[in-house]
């Protein structure tokens, strides 16, 4: 909304309300910064482990810089008013993830058990695919409101994606416990990562239509608005589905993510605290209920309550039909030996976590080598991404965009919480990946798409509004009639 004051003379100043500078140059500067930091870290790892600047430094730096540059040019062209922080923040996390994966690639121990070696190159390819999808979102999604048309198709699509791992023959038969992968050729894909975005589209479209019924038809009881029984329908359906995921795919993370995302969006759409209370109660009941009879989930809970016992059982090689793992304890030790300032890049021993050290447990590597100071910075960067998402939601002018932005950033925040909390022993461990940091194609690609959608919404939200229509109170000026 720019109100220009009259024709230009020497001292005219243009006073624009809620400024809509495009901030693209800010983004570029931050992006350069965000590429330089991982390159520095990369050199640091090489110097610490091999005593020399790694040979791939230049190609790695150019690769990351090129990807970030292409992303930036796409934003400049297709979303010129987008938020200046989202792209650099995501690039930095992705770059740091690449460095950490490369650092674990150097570990002899992990190479022996086939958990490392060449993973960084793969991850760089996944990043390229992620950036490609990010650009595709910007190019083909001209206006996020078109997604609103596909509300119920998205619901079907999301359910399809969620149920894919359960299809016999398609679901990857891996001994990881959770059944959230599918096998296509030689690739394993985690459809849940993509379902997250599609589901947010459905929830946003659905709640936008139903919010009034959910918000207004309620009775007040003890300071809480109790919804009518029939309005509880949707939340119960989503709850049932997430419980089913928990039971059949034995994955607490995915289940928590979807239900949590729905509750967050429900709360934002209706402004009723009661939904949060209901949501917390229902998820607690569901989690406790399932954990009491599902053996895999039960093991996870036991490992959470007493990681040292699991560690000992695993060391002793106890065979009681349950896979015991020393990961949880090793991760805690990794954080502990990192201390406040960390051991420095390449000087920790996070490879002792062995299995999934570069995916689910990558945060432990950061915790050990960068210490509390580094982990705090990384969590803050995640926080900033979420903050920009919520800020985008606040600035968005249409309810669908608001809900979608809140849903996506809420899902992102929940995922970070679930993974970081799991690795740090705050909540039971789940099979999810740290967005951008962890090794894994689906996660990187899906999260770049998520950032793409957020950038599209923020572009629409921050774009200067078209000139306001002539003011309705612009009545005729009365003319002074000399009497």
């Amino acid at each position: 909304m720019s109100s220009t004051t009259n024709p230009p003379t020497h001292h005219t100043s243009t006073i624009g309300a809620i400024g809509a500078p495009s901030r693209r140059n800010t983004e570029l500067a931050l992006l350069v910064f965000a590429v330089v930091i991982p390159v520095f870290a990369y050199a640091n790892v090489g110097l610490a482990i091999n005593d020399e600047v790694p040979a791939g430094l230049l190609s790695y730096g150019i690769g990351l810089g090129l990807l970030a540059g292409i992303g930036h040019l796409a934003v400049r062209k297709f979303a010129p008013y987008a938020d200046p922080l989202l792209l650099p923040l995501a690039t930095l996390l992705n770059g740091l993830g690449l460095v950490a994966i490369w650092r674990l690639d150097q570990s002899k121990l992990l190479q022996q058990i086939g958990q490392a070696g060449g993973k960084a190159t793969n991850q760089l390819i996944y990043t390229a695919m992620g950036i490609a999808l990010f650009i595709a979102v910007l190019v083909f999604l001209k206006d996020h409101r078109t997604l609103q048309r596909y509300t119920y198709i998205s619901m079907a699509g999301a359910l399809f994606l969620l149920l894919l791992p359960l299809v016999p023959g398609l679901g990857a038969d891996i001994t990881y416990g959770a059944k959230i992968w599918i096998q296509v050729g030689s690739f394993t894909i985690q459809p849940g990562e993509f379902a997250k975005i599609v589901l947010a589209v459905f929830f946003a479209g659905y709640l936008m239509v139903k919010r009034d019924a959910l918000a207004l038809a309620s009775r007040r009881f003890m300071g809480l608005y109790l919804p009518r029984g029939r309005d509880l329908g949707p939340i119960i359906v989503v709850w049932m589905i997430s419980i089913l995921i928990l039971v059949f795919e034995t994955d607490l993370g995915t289940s928590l993510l979807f239900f949590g995302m729905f509750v967050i969006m429900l709360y934002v759409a209706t402004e009723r605290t009661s939904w949060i209370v209901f949501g917390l109660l229902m998820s607690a009941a569901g989690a406790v209920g399932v954990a009491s009879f599902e053996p895999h989930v039960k093991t996870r809970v036991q490992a959470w309550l007493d990681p040292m016992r699991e560690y000992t059982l695993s060391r002793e090689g106890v065979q009681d039909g349950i896979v015991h793992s020393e990961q949880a304890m090793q991760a805690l030790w990794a954080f502990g030996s990192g201390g406040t300032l960390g051991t420095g890049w390449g000087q920790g021993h996070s490879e002792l976590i062995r299995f999934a050290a570069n995916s689910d447990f990558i945060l432990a590597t950061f915790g050990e080598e960068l210490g509390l100071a580094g982990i705090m910075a990384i969590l803050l960067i995640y926080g900033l991404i979420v903050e920009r998402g919520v800020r985008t939601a606040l600035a968005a002018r249409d309810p669908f965009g608001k809900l979608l932005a809140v849903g996506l950033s809420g899902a992102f925040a929940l995922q970070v919480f679930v993974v970081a909390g799991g690795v740090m022993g705050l909540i039971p461990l789940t099979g999810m990946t740290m967005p951008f940091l962890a090794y894994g194609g689906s996660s990187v690609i899906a999260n770049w798409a998520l950032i793409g959608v957020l950038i599209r919404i923020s572009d629409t939200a921050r774009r200067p509004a078209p000139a306001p229509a002539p003011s309705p109170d612009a009545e005729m000026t009365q003319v002074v009639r000399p009497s």
Partner: protein
Amino acid sequence: MSELTLTVMRLGFLAVLWLFVIVAVQVIRSDLFGTRVTQRGSRREAARPQQAARQAAPPQQRGQQGGGRQRRNAPSKLVVSEGTLTGTTVALQGQTITLGRAHDSTIVLDDDYASSRHARIYPDRDGQWIVEDLGSTNGTYLDRTRLTTPTPIPLGAPIRIGKTVIELRK
């Protein structure tokens, strides 16, 4: 690699990482204050958000350019001395002040005899304040003469717009 180098790199990396976070927060901070003033003159100064005195406050925020050069004997404020807005003052800091019924005017006149964009008051290159009629229906009067061209405003001279009278004071 020597222990010292690695320690320096370790701490240096953490410092750089935190610097990035701080820079990012600074960008957010500059994004929060939504007003922006683009100075089209030769000198550019930092914009300082300041609430302009308006009666019928439109929902937008507004910024004014701060810290203008002040000469001796130069007026420092604009005072409304007659009309519904009597008592309103606007600090003169080198910004253009628009007067009229339009919602985006600096001083929104609730006056049937004022035009939507009635007049504006701005400093010329030397810092002398000028009043200019913007083709209003009923005209702008400086003292008793109706303005036809942009005219310098003497200190304390009444400018009449409809039923409103304003003047510049020290």
